[in-house]
């Protein structure tokens, strides 16, 4: 059965319409609702749809022609729809692939058979892939985009391959630039020396050797931020340097120290006991200075200089006079372990009134030390020479005067040369 498509009234005021383009050609299968043509009314260009399904028999109006509303513009064979139902897909393929042929020259039939009937989705897939390429530039913040332009980066390609997040920000671009222009080793060097990547030209990849060469040529020091331990050590020695101190040196006998030395009761352990005993008899070395005045402590608490690499610790042996030799030795072991694990507690670094720094094991003959925190003095102990050991006191003059320090030194010498002290302690 024949069905005529007529020029529709597309607005209340429309009397005539101009046919703009045909979306169908003779021989095409048309389904109800398909767009068959574009028509310009007095208001706008609009699509017109078929109200019936069928095969296009003929087109009655040429593009550009203006006809009155109600005029037939095309003829469908509505029976053909049933006969040729299988062909519908083919027609639709052709329609979308090729531009609509002019009605004067109907598309040759064989073009339809050439269309990829076996995979009707191919065109659709193709267009989906093609779409991003028409979408220029990827998704990025204006600032990131500007940076990418400067470094010659293709944001879109990088986002496509997954090496840039979407949307990309400045930090992401910087990462890509760094990875792009520097080898991983070179990047490590940049980070360690806090060098800006801008120092190196863009356009080529830089390796570690180039960065090293730059560092050497420009004599750039490796920055190393101070950690808390270093900061506190610096603060302590700065304070120590402000103290009004004097030095006093003498030698103490080494004989009994050596004789009573064991694997656990080392010279250091003995020195702690020795100085503790001397401190008990000279209260100036058990004294601390506070804003309120002096404080004299009843027991001998001693800070001992212990180094671990570049770090120096002054852990405090509390009340050494009350501890047995083995307890002091055990405490020393505990501190050694804690220092190795860097686990010394804050409370273990306070409470002393005197310090000892023993470098005897290094072969240094004599030296002087800096007073730790609030201590009254520190003893710098050197190595043994000809049966005696050099002891240098650094004394805070505000707490102990020279005469008192000399008496303390005498006491020390007497104790070191007196075997009964060593015997008493070992019992």
């Amino acid at each position, binding site marked *: 059965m024949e069905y005529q498509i007529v020029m529709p009234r597309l607005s209340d005021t429309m009397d005539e319409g101009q046919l703009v383009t045909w979306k169908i050609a003779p021989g095409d299968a048309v389904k109800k609702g398909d767009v068959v043509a574009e028509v310009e009314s007095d208001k706008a260009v609009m699509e017109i749809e078929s109200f019936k399904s069928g095969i296009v028999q003929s087109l009655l109006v040429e593009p550009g022609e203006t006809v009155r509303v109600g005029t037939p513009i095309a003829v469908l064979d509505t029976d053909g729809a049933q006969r040729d139902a299988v062909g519908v897909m083919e027609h639709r393929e052709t329609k979308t692939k090729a531009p609509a042929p002019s009605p004067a020259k109907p598309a040759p039939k064989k073009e339809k058979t050439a269309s990829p009937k076996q995979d009707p989705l191919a065109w659709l897939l193709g267009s989906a892939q093609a779409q991003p390429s028409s979408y220029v530039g990827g998704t990025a*913040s*204006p*600032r990131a985009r*500007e940076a990418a332009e400067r470094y010659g980066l293709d944001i879109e390609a990088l986002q496509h391959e997954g090496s840039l*997040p979407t949307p*990309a*920000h400045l930090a*992401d671009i910087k990462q890509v630039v760094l990875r792009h222009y520097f080898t991983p080793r070179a990047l490590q060097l940049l980070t360690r020396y806090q060098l800006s990547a801008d120092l190196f030209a863009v356009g080529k990849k830089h390796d570690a050797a180039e960065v090293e060469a730059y560092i050497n040529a420009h004599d750039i020091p490796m920055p190393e931020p101070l950690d808390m331990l270093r900061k506190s050590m610096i603060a302590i020695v700065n304070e120590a340097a402000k103290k009004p101190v004097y030095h006093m040196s003498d030698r103490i006998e080494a004989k009994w120290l050596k004789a009573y030395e064991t694997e656990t009761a080392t010279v250091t352990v003995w020195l702690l006991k020795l100085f503790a005993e001397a401190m008990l008899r000279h209260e100036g070395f058990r004294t601390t200075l506070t804003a309120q005045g002096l404080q004299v402590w009843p027991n001998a608490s001693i800070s001992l200089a212990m180094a671990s690499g570049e770090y120096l610790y002054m852990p405090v042996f509390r009340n050494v006079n009350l501890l047995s030799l083995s307890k002091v030795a055990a405490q020393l072991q505990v501190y050694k372990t804690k220092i190795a694990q860097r686990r010394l507690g804050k409370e273990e670094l306070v409470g002393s009134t005197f310090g000892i720094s023993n470098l005897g094991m290094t072969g240094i003959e004599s030296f002087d030390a800096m007073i730790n925190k609030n201590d009254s003095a520190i003893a710098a102990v050197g190595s043994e020479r000809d049966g005696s050991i050099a002891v240098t006191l650094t004394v805070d003059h505000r707490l102990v005067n020279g005469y008192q320090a000399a008496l303390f030194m005498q006491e020390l010498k007497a104790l070191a040369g007196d075997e009964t002290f060593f015997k008493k302690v070992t019992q």
Partner: protein
Amino acid sequence: MLYREALNRAIDEVMAIDETVVVLGEDVGRYGGSYRVTEGLVAKYGEARLIDTPIAELSIVGNAIGMAMAGLRPVAEIMTANFALLAFDQIINHMPKYRYMSAGKITLPMVVRFPQGVSRQLAAQHSESYEQMLCAVPGLRVLAAGDVNYAYHALKAAMLSDDPVVFIEHELLYTKKGEVDFDAEVDPFKARVVKAGDDITIVSYLKMVDDVMAAVPEIEKKLGKQCEVIDLCSLNPVDYDTLEASVKKTGSIVVVEEDHKTGGYGAQIVSWAAEKMFYSLDEPPLRIAGEDVPIPYNRTLELAAIPTPESIAARIVAWAEGNGA
């Protein structure tokens, strides 16, 4: 020194040096002001210079305009911004326009003090902010004092200026404590960098500056980034130079305001950023503002209707994390 004491001191000092300065408003004289800003001044300067007016806002501002025309330097106090609506014909249609329409023959050296904002449970008709309307009127200077030192210096500058100034105060700030540097030279039109930082620019004004500052530790902890907090101080004109330097540094801008979001003043700052700073931005601008609802009386709902330190921190963290932080 308290915020209200700083304002009192500013008025006192200018009244002492310039006898043309008069203060007028409801209860500004014998009562000492609803917020105690003019406390003690009537004893010093008398009722002729501290004028208690009837409850008639239109006449307060209208009279002030007349006084200014005739050579005085009036400081008119509105009790709360919502009541100023009755005076808006004078504030919008007269105050900013006389100089323009008289070809410069008439100047109005006057200040309208303007307490506003969400206080505590004063409900919908006593909680609003009107900077968006005031700043839309060419010819008005609009200052917003969020800081004690700024309050002192800016109010003095406003009183000594020959331009009509609306001086916005926030009702919750009167008991805020702060230091005043009396010798400092403070440009009332310059924004204040409250806290410097390299990563996120947060622009605010009035009480929200304090709320932003309360939110900053949480933001910095969660994001590992530094915030730069800017108090606009002058809402019209705006110190865009300070904003520009900050946005160029951080690549971002967050605007925090207490007022309702739609049509709110912060939109002007964000629009400036989009127009002028587009190529410097690394994240879309973020605007944190009050909800588009009349301010509720219920305290829980009242706080839900405006930004709080908690909501500011949460919003900024979520925004930064959604933008590659």
